[in-house]
């Protein structure tokens, strides 16, 4: 059973439910606190890494900040951790303004992009390090360290040093170390980016499982959209030091509010059409428009590949048809590229059966599913 520990600032983290928890780690849930970032700004010379960024996180929530390199997501996380000072704005954790509280007193666990295990300590000693700083005695530290190593599935590696572990194992230990102090907030700064694809997916799912069990409010920074959509309660897409849109992963994907978000998350076809009364007519199909789209006139509709279907044409070439230029098999599904009469290339994602039935040079009819799309003028 994982018991609450005295925090760096002398408080006790963990809810009453955590204290009375049984053997299940899930019982430690509710330990999270609300986090608010209010109007954060941070400049490096002429570069505005954060430009009045604001974010509210509810207790126990996992928010992923996603965006291209240089958008300010890591700076936001570092400001929350206290590793960087904001030029202006406030960091409020659990209702308290901690903007001027040093890192060591903020009581936040952090997993870094680079491997950060202390090389001269074993995995157990790494996990116990934060507990030692909180004045726990040796046997208690050891017991708790073993519990957290078990949580990340590495209790058999407790006596190993960092150089004796793989990258994935090191990041797991780093996660256990960050969680062992039962932090108010867990901060994950691209923790999976140094790992290979398979380990990344495994550890990603594990992080989500553990976060749900422990219930710590978590801010996760990544530039990998699949990772973001897979683990987040909410995804905040950042651009130029601000959050462009923040919402549930499915909403971010299916109802982007800006062309940047639509373009950054997933694949998008840009198709010319004509809008009127909240409907856009593209390639012979009428598709409802998302709020924020122009309501009339010529527009460019941003259509997801999975909303497009190519079927062998029964009428030959003409409006609403295209010529297949390439097909690709991606395992669970396939992708087909077809050229429209105006030379534009459309990408469709279809079932494997539909994909293998098409060949380069085939004339196909284009159909667009009537799910709502965003359009730009």
């Amino acid at each position, binding site marked *: 059973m994982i018991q609450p520990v005295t925090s760096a600032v002398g408080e006790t983290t963990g809810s009453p439910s955590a204290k009375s928890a049984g053997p299940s780690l899930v019982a430690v849930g509710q330990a999270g606190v609300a986090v608010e970032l209010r109007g954060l700004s941070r400049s490096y010379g002429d570069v505005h890494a954060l430009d009045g960024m604001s974010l509210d996180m509810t207790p126990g929530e996992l928010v992923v900040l996603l965006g291209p390199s240089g958008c300010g997501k890591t700076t936001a996380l570092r400001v929350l951790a206290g590793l960087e000072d904001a030029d202006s704005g406030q960091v409020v954790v659990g209702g308290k303004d901690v903007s001027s509280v040093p890192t060591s007193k903020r009581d936040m666990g952090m997993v870094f992009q680079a491997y950060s295990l*202390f090389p001269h300590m074993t995995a157990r000693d790494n996990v116990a390090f934060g507990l030692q700083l909180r004045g726990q005695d040796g046997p208690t530290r050891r017991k708790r360290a073993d519990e957290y190593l078990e949580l990340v599935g590495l209790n058999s590696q407790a006596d190993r040093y960092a150089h004796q572990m793989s990258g994935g194992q090191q990041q797991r230990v780093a996660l256990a170390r960050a969680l062992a102090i039962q932090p108010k907030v867990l901060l994950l700064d691209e923790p999976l980016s140094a790992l290979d694809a398979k380990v990344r997916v495994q550890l990603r799912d594990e992080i989500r499982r553990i976060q749900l069990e422990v219930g710590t409010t978590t801010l996760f920074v990544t530039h990998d959209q699949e990772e973001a959509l897979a683990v987040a309660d909410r995804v905040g897409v950042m651009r130029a030091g601000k959050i462009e849109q923040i919402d549930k992963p499915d909403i971010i994907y299916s109802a982007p509010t800006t062309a940047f978000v639509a373009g950054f998350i997933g694949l998008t076809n840009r198709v010319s059409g004509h809008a009127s009364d909240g409907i856009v007519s593209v390639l012979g199909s009428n598709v409802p428009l998302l709020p924020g789209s122009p309501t009339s006139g010529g527009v460019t509709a941003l259509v997801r590949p999975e909303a497009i279907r190519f079927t062998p044409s029964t009428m030959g070439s003409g409006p609403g048809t295209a010529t297949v230029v390439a097909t690709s098999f991606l395992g669970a599904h396939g992708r087909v590229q077809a050229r429209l009469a105006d030379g534009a290339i459309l990408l469709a994602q279809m079932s494997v059966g539909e994909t293998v039935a098409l060949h380069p040079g085939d004339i196909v009819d284009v159909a667009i599913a009537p799910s709502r799309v965003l359009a730009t003028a």
Partner: protein
Amino acid sequence: MSAGTGQAGPAEAKNFGGPGDTPVDADALTQVAMEYPMAPEIAAGSAPRKLRAAARRKQAIIRRIVITLVALFMILPLAGLFDFSTRLLNGKRTWRSWSTVFHFSQLTAAAPDLIAGFKITMALCLVTAVLTVALLVPTMTWIRLRAPHMSKLVEFICLLPLTIPAIVLVAGLGPVYRGIAHTLGTGNIWLCFIYVILALPYAYRAIDTGLAAIDVKTLSEAARSLGSSWSRVMLKIILPNIRAAVLGASFLTIALVLGEYTVAYLLSKSNLSVALFNLGLSASGDPRLTAAVSLILLIFGFVVMFGFSLIGSARREKKVKK
């Protein structure tokens, strides 16, 4: 067919496959090589192995020659020193100087300044090494974390003492030492300040190498996020991970202090080297005793070096065993 026996030359090629197998000729081998990329290596047999073995033998011989030459270079002067310390002018052997060295009362009587010089030099070694490490490690860590743009400037400043002759350094620091004499006293121990400056170039290089081998920023941020103070970050995280570099810097500092003569002499201070030199000059002094003590000091330096080296490797072995 056993293709592994392909070391056979063209004459033996017919027996390649052993009894019962189809004879193999060179053309057939070429054909195999073209069809199977691994075949040429197999067909070539142990010829490369022989070449590699010959190369290894050659390297071993060169290694032994180099080691022997280096050993001679190191040992011959020491042997000469030892010979001088045990030989009278008439060519006869005498162990009087060594007897004096190993009898404290005799040594104290023969060279009273030597014992005082030894004591102060040992104290200077300790104080200088501690001061150098205490000055450089936090400074260099801080520069890596907060002011990396200043690293070149600091490197330049630390290397500067290499380019300044001791006499210039002493002339420049004369007024400073007059101030020190007024405030702290005239004790020889205060030579530690100028020795720290002299040790900077060597200690800087050693510690810089150690810090470059670890991710100082991430490790310190990880420790800070877990609740560690800066002092604890330095003592519990940075120092243990640059232990070998700190030992190296300490050794270089100690080696420098053990052999330092010019600055101490020019500042009218005394240390072991000055005492040794004065002993050699004095009318009552025995040059053989000076040579014996010098040899002892050199051996002491080697012991210190191996001691530091052993401490470092013992820790590494302990870590690997765990």
